[in-house]
C-alpha cells in the first residue's frame, strides 16, 4: 500500500486550534487553580486570586507576556491532572497549562519567560546508557 506522506507542521496547527478552543471555552472560574497540588511551590502564588491567575494563563495563550502569577503557575505545572475533573466547562486545563508552558518557554517562537532545563547531552546520554547494556544487534535493530 502506498501512503501519502503526512504534511509537516500538523502538531503546531493542532496546538493553535486547541489554544483557540480553550480561549473560547474557559470561563475563568479559577477552579483548576484551586485544585492544583503544586501552587504552594511557587512563591508568587501565595494569596493569588485564582480567577486572575487563570486570566493570566489565557493571556499567554493569546500571545501576551503573562502576569508574574501566571508564569509562576506555568513554571511549577507537573501535569498532575488534578485540574481536569475540577473544571466545570470541560476545558481540559492540563492541555491549557501544557500549551501555556510551551508558549512561555519559547517553544512556539516567542521569547522565553519561564526557566527551561537545557540538557545538551539528553539524547547522547540515552544512547550511551544503551551502548552499555544492549548488544550491537539490538542497538542496530531496536533504535
Amino acid at each position, binding site marked *: 500500500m502506498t*501512503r501519502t*506522506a*503526512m504534511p*509537516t*507542521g*500538523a*502538531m*503546531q*496547527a*493542532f*496546538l493553535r486550534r486547541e489554544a483557540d478552543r480553550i480561549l473560547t471555552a474557559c470561563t475563568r472560574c479559577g477552579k483548576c487553580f484551586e485544585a492544583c*497540588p*503544586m501552587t504552594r*511551590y511557587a512563591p508568587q502564588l501565595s494569596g493569588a486570586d485564582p480567577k486572575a491567575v487563570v486570566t493570566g494563563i489565557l493571556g499567554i495563550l493569546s500571545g501576551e507576556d503573562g502576569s508574574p502569577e501566571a508564569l509562576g503557575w506555568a*513554571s*511549577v505545572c*507537573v*501535569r*498532575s*491532572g*488534578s485540574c*481536569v*475533573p475540577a473544571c466545570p466547562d470541560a476545558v481540559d486545563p492540563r*492541555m491549557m497549562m*501544557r500549551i501555556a*508552558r*510551551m508558549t512561555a*518557554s*519559547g*517553544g*512556539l517562537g516567542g521569547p*522565553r519567560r519561564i*526557566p*527551561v*532545563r*537545557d540538557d545538551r*547531552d*539528553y*539524547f*547522547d*546520554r*540515552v*544512547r*550511551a*546508557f*544503551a*551502548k*552499555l*547494556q*544492549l548488544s550491537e544487534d*539490538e542497538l542496530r*535493530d*531496536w*533504535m
Partner: protein
Amino acid sequence: MSEKIIFWYGCNVLRHGDIVHSCLDILRRLGVDARPAGGPDYCCGSVKEANQAAADGMARRTVTKFNEMGRERVVAWCPSCHAHMTGFMGQAYEPEFGLTYLVDLLYERRAELAAFLERAVPLRVLVHKHVGFNDKVAVNDRLPALLRLIPGVDVVEDDYAAPGYMCASLAAVPAAMKDMVRETVRRVALHRADAVVTIYHQCYRELVGLEPHANIRTFNYIHLLAQSMGLPYEDEYKAWKKAGAGAAAAIGDKRLEQVGVQFFERAMLPELVKRPPGLTKDEG
C-alpha cells in the same frame, strides 16, 4: 505467537537494559510477538517542550515509522510517550495503530501471566504512585493487582500519590521532589515495608538511591515479575548507583571506552552519584 505488536519502550528506560529485556521476555512468554522500538529515533517529542518545531518533526517521524511497520497495536512502556501519543501526536497526525500501555496489556493477560510467576518473592512493598496519568490508565489500581499475583509479595494499602505524572516532572521543582522523597521514606517506615516499588522507570531512577543512602530496598515492578519468573537479567543501574563514585570500575574499561570516559564523567556519572534529595534535615 498470537499477536504482533510494536513494543515502544521510549528513551530513558535505556538506562535499564534489564527492564527492556525482561519486558520482551515477559511478552514472549505471553505469546506476544513484540518488535522493540525506542531511543531518540522513535522519540515522542515531549521532551522538546521549548522547541515545538523539533517536537513536531519527532512526532511526525515516529507516527510515520509505526504506520510503516504495519502492526495493529503499539504497546508503550513510558507514560510520557503514551500520554503524548494520545494527547498530541495522535491528534495532529494519523496513526494507523491502536495504543496500549504495558500495564494494561499485562492486566488484560493477568491470568496467563500468573501461571508464569512460579518463584516466591517474599517482600512487603509500598507502591510509589503519582496522581497524573492515572486518569488515562488506571495504573494505581492495576499495578498493585499485578504485584499481588506474585507469590510472597504483600502490597501495603496506602493512599499517597505524588504530584505530577512521574518523577521526571518533579525534577524541575526541587522542593516538591524533596517532599516526595520524605513522604515516601516516612510511609515505608509507617507500614514497615521492606521495599519501594515504582511503576515508572524515571521514578526508579530517582528513588533507587534510597537503597545505598537510606537502606530502603527499591525496585521497579518489572524487577519483581522477572524475579518470580526466574528471568536472568542483572539490574546494573542499581549496581552503578550503589558504586557511586566508583561506578566506572563497576562498568569496566572496555564498556567505558564505548561511551568515552570524558562523556561518562561529564554526562553520566553525576546522576549515578546523586542522592535522593530531602534525606537529611539540613537540606531544608
